[in-house]
């Protein structure tokens, strides 16, 4: 069995699913920004680099405020670009948090995914520090507030003989060197961020780095429009001898300032440090232990034909092909690295001879499970195959429509032989409901499933199966209405076909080895 969500994860998942449903209705699953949170952050970082490179030409470390004020007063080449830069940095924080939330809610934070989680948290930290240095660069009242309160917090660490906060007291004018170092940090941190992001995606195959073009450019257009309509504010020039009554604060970056003011710098520092520790320890806190931990895939080397499809399909690069020890039916054999395998089970669906998969979830296990189901299946009924997460929301509605629901761990794991067996077993049609492609918990399940059924991807649905009786759709757990409508349509379409006859002939489960080129 796949890992089951815990109570807090379930709550987070319920909220996420509701938000996903709303966005799916408005933007469709392909352009749902919540599904694309990770890629949107990358796109925003790109936008930040482009706008930042432009702004850097006008910034002077010797006169930080006046140079930014000059930019802000230039409506054509300064103001809106600076505003886009600022709003993009804010949006990057928002989408990073959405991404974090999604990964937590879907239980994708532990085991082999711990590296991605940890590097993601570090990337978020770098994003915050980079953003704060950006505000200090401006050296307006907000930049000064951030610098002063940040210094007070850092001064609780007994590592310097003199407090950093003395730099902002007004005893001496702030040196250009301070702004130079700050600017250096603002430029250098994104380089480190790039390295961390590389680490973040290093354990996934074919990482998707950018959102669909329409969504990406739509977001850029929205940010530009916002920058034109509501340009970013610039506070009064910083001075150590006057405390402004009110400061316009970017809460996404300066959420900690009221904490420092309301408690004490030490208390705020401890609170933030604990929050960071908590985030970093999520992989440990959410780790499934003993029986609750799903087992990694295993390869039955007697069955493996060395075709390489499982290693191609594996979304986590956990399967490699090695020389078959001692020779045998094929030159190569698949080998699963249990340290990398997240037990997603995608390989179960990609192996035509059903020789690989997590224990109890291989293609052969799926066939063994479906046989008694078929034995009890009334001829002419529509079977809906969906994952247990979706089934929780739809089962009753689908059954009220007259369909029979068969739950699987993940629709992307589904071996096409199961579909064939269902059709041959007398089902009038098989409707497979997968998660929306960008919301697949196992990354590429719906894509591979769809290609196996419609595009003859290896482990394909055999040509002898009437394609009119098989349909694949995607929906999230809250889209009951859409699912019911799709089922009604499918039932209406299959009703026009002749009544199927059960065919109980045994399926051929043995595959011939496939010749594989060494390259």
């Amino acid at each position: 069995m796949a890992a089951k969500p815990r109570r807090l994860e379930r709550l987070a998942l319920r909220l996420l699913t509701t938000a996903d449903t709303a966005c799916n209705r408005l933007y469709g699953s392909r352009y749902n920004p919540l599904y694309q949170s990770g890629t949107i952050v990358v796109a925003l970082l790109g936008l930040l680099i482009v706008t930042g490179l432009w702004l850097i030409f006008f910034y002077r470390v010797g006169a930080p405020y006046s140079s930014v004020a000059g930019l802000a007063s230039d409506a054509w080449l300064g103001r809106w670009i600076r505003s886009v830069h600022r709003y993009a940095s804010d949006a990057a924080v928002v989408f990073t948090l959405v991404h974090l939330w999604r990964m937590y809610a879907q239980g994708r934070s532990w085991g082999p995914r711990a590296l991605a989680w940890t590097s993601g948290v570090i990337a978020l930290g770098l994003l915050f520090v980079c953003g704060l240095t950006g505000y200090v660069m401006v050296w307006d009242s907000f930049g000064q507030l951030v610098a002063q309160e940040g210094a007070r917090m850092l001064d609780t660490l007994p590592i310097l003989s003199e407090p950093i906060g003395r730099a902002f007291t007004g005893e001496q004018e702030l040196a250009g060197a301070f702004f130079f170092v700050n600017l250096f940090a603002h430029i250098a941190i994104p380089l480190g961020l790039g390295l961390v992001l590389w680490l973040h995606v290093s354990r996934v195959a074919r990482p998707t780095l950018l959102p669909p073009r329409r969504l990406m450019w739509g977001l850029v257009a929205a940010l530009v429009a916002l920058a034109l309509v509501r340009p970013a504010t610039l506070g009064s020039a910083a001075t150590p001898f006057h405390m402004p009554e009110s400061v316009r604060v970017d809460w996404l970056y300066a959420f900690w300032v009221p904490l420092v003011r309301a408690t004490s710098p030490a208390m705020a520092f401890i609170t933030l440090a604990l929050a960071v520790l908590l985030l970093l320890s999520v992989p440990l806190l959410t780790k499934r232990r003993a029986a609750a931990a799903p087992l990694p895939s295993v390869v039955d080397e007697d069955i493996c034909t060395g075709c390489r499809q499982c290693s191609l399909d594996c979304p986590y690069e956990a399967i490699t092909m090695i020389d078959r020890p001692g020779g045998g039916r094929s030159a190569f054999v698949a080998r699963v690295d249990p340290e990398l395998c997240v037990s997603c089970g995608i390989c179960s669906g990609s192996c035509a001879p059903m020789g690989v998969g997590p224990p109890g979830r291989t293609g052969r296990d799926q066939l063994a499970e479906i046989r008694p189901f078929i034995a009890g299946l009334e001829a002419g009924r529509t079977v809906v195959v969906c994952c247990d997460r979706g089934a929780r929301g739809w089962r009753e509605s689908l059954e009220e429509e007259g369909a029979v629901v068969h739950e699987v761990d993940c629709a992307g794991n589904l071996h096409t032989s199961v579909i064939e067996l269902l059709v041959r077993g007398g089902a009038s049609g098989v409707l497979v409901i997968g998660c929306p492609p960008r919301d697949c918990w196992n990354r590429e399940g719906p894509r591979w499933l769809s290609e196996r059924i419609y595009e003859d991807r290896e482990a394909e649905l055999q040509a002898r199966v009437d394609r009119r009786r098989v349909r694949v759709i995607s929906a999230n757990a809250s889209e009951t209405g859409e699912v019911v409508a799709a089922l009604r349509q499918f039932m209406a379409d299959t009703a026009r076909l002749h009544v199927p006859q059960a065919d109980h002939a045994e399926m051929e489960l043995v595959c011939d080895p496939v010749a594989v080129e060494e390259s």
Partner: protein
Amino acid sequence: MSRALRLGLATIMAVGAMLALASVSAAPFRANALPEARLRVAFSARPERIETCRTPSESELANLPAHMRQGVVCEGTTATYRLEVRHDDSLVATALLRGGGLRHDRRLYALRELSVPSGHSTIDVRLVRVDSVVARPARESHESDDHTRIGEDAFARDEDEHRRTVADEVPPLLTLRDTLTLRPREVLLVTYDQASHRLRTVRGAP
């Protein structure tokens, strides 16, 4: 849901999200709601060095490599000071100040931020040396010695450095008393002027 309605709602949602982003990005925060002024005492000064000096014997020097031979060897610590801040003659802050660093041999610093009522105020700041121990100025004249090779030049350099260090030290008593009118949310800085060895106030332009 019709396509037009969906498009309309999607646009409204996107516009709403963007405006929310802009609002969160620049939300007013009452950082200093009260019309108080602030008294900031911030300075750094070299504390008086309390040290015992002695002239090493010829045999001691002979045992040292040439580049480590000093005419006078001094050991000790730095003095401790009490900072007292009064506003309208009532004590608002007090602190013991020592030199920085683990061995307290670096410059001492003060950094205090005190909220005080705005308006007519009398500010009184005192920095008082509290140690009863004094340095023993046991620096004697030195004759050059061919064997140990500590020449008069090196000794003179040591003496010069010692004089400069002493000249930089903060006096045993510093006082500042000033009567002024503080504007609401004004920051009055009290700092130490190294050149004149005095405390002074610094204010921003009104």
